[in-house]
């Protein structure tokens, strides 16, 4: 059913820390690996070893340069996958009922046996979270690793999305954003987590933590107007002991 549920019992999603992400693309690779070998059609590549390789990815890492009015530019790595929106426009446009949002946890999924591959859901998504698999002719998207998070065959620590499990920097967090007391909700509240393209009205569940302000040590203007802060004053004016003797001996030379 492509009408959206009025409310979902939980809002499972990701919190992505733009301050911590180092842009290593490990999440991209683990996502592609897990989702090629498990639920649904594999994520195909076209011309993978040729001159013009392309492929289906459910998670991609962009890098942006942000130039403040004053001071040095910042480089920010920006992982992007499905945001499992509360008002998911990709779901309502689907003509076949292949796209749906789950009532129990809010995950947006595609039933691949119903998908006709019209591509309209990808048109409706502002985030580029849906990609048509050119080998299978069906729409692929992040499943929030629905086949890991409830999978009792996996050790408990592995029951989270592959991207979260693999992130070496701890920049990705998984949890219930509908519960204000959950770790992820606390993190969002503490760090001012934000929505991407809020004006599109999609109400994304996934949140992004903005980069923390950069250290201003070498850029803050000092009292004399120079950019470099003054040297620290020596605390010990008179040297004592061996250093004192050395100082005096060298003076006499």
């Amino acid at each position, binding site marked *: *059913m*492509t009408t959206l549920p009025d409310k979902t019992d939980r809002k499972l999603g990701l919190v992505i820390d*733009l301050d911590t992400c180092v842009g290593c693309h490990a999440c991209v690779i683990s996502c592609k690996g897990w989702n090629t070998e498990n639920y649904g059609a594999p994520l195909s590549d076209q011309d993978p070893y040729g001159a*013009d*390789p*392309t*492929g*289906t*990815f459910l998670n*991609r*890492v*962009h*890098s*942006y*340069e*942000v*130039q*403040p009015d004053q001071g040095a*530019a*910042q480089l*920010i790595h*920006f992982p*992007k996958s499905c945001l499992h929106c509360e008002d998911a*426009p990709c779901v*309502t*446009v*689907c*003509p*076949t*009922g*292949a796209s749906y949002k789950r009532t129990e946890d809010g995950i947006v999924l595609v039933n691949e046996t*119903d*998908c*006709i*591959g*019209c*591509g*309209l859901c*990808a*048109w*409706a*998504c*502002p*985030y*580029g979270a849906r990609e*048509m698999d*050119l080998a*299978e*002719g*069906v*729409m692929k998207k992040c499943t929030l690793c629905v086949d890991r998070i409830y999978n009792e065959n996996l050790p408990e620590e592995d029951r989270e999305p592959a991207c979260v499990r693999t992130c070496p920097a701890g920049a990705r967090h998984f949890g219930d954003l509908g519960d204000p007391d959950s770790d992820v909700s606390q993190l969002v509240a503490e760090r001012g987590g*934000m929505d*991407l*393209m*809020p*004006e*599109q009205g999609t109400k994304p569940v996934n949140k*992004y933590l*903005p*980069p923390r302000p950069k250290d201003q040590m070498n850029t803050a203007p000092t009292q004399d107007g120079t950019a470099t802060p003054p040297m620290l004053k020596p605390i010990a004016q008179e040297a004592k002991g061996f250093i004192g003797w050395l100082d005096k001996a060298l003076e006499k030379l």
Partner: protein
Amino acid sequence: MHPAPSVIIFTTLSGLGFGLLVWLGLGLTAVTGWVAFVFFAIAYALAVGGLLASTFHLGHPERALKAFTQWRSSWLSREAWASVAALTVMAVYGTGLVFFGAEWTVLGWLGAVLCLLTVYSTAMIYGQLKTVPRWKTPLTPALLLAISLAGGALLAGQITAALILLPIAAVLQVVWWVRGDTALRESGTDMQSATGLGHIGQVRAFEPPHTGTNYLLKEFVHVVGRKHSVKLRTITLVLGYGLPVLLLLLPVGHMIAALAILVHLAGIAASRWLFFAEAEHVVGLYYGKR
């Protein structure tokens, strides 16, 4: 947006076919017997041919029947229903005209309304998309309905109606272009809101996710077709609207009418190419493109 030939052919031809069916349904082009058969054959060839072309871009055309299930939320599903209903009702109405010489007026009017609903649903598939600010306006269904009705009038030999509707469609076309040219800027979606990094400073795409291209860039960030925008807009206005009006003002024979229809079709195809090629999808912003 990528201007897929299948979708351009579909919207151009089926729009014209359903437009012709509207005029036939209204009974203004009073035809019966063989003449009616020819008119209906042309209308069905255009409408059904267009619908078939649209299935070429599907990944799984064999599952197309499933598209009838989600009419509660999906304009694409509503379009499927409206088109089948329109074609069925008009087939019954056409049978009456062709084989019995009977004009079942109520059925014709119902068919005409269903044809207009079909064109409206097609237009709303595009007009509903917030992600493409150029399309997200009531002007989109207005323009596509005007083009369909004007083209239909041309084909149905409704010269007075065509002479009124073609200029109306041309004006809507220009208004739609002018509004569209600033639509992305006016939408409030830009790289700062896309990344949420605007509070720090100016955002610039430094590195794309992969060195190669991908589905998103091919489907949504198509810039080649926009290069000749001004030329194509001129071609649209001259061929699609101007020349047909001039030709209709001449003493009309079958040859001139056919010529008017052909140039109109060429002009509308150019307009439809631009409809896609010039449309900027907001996902391009993540790649620093539009």
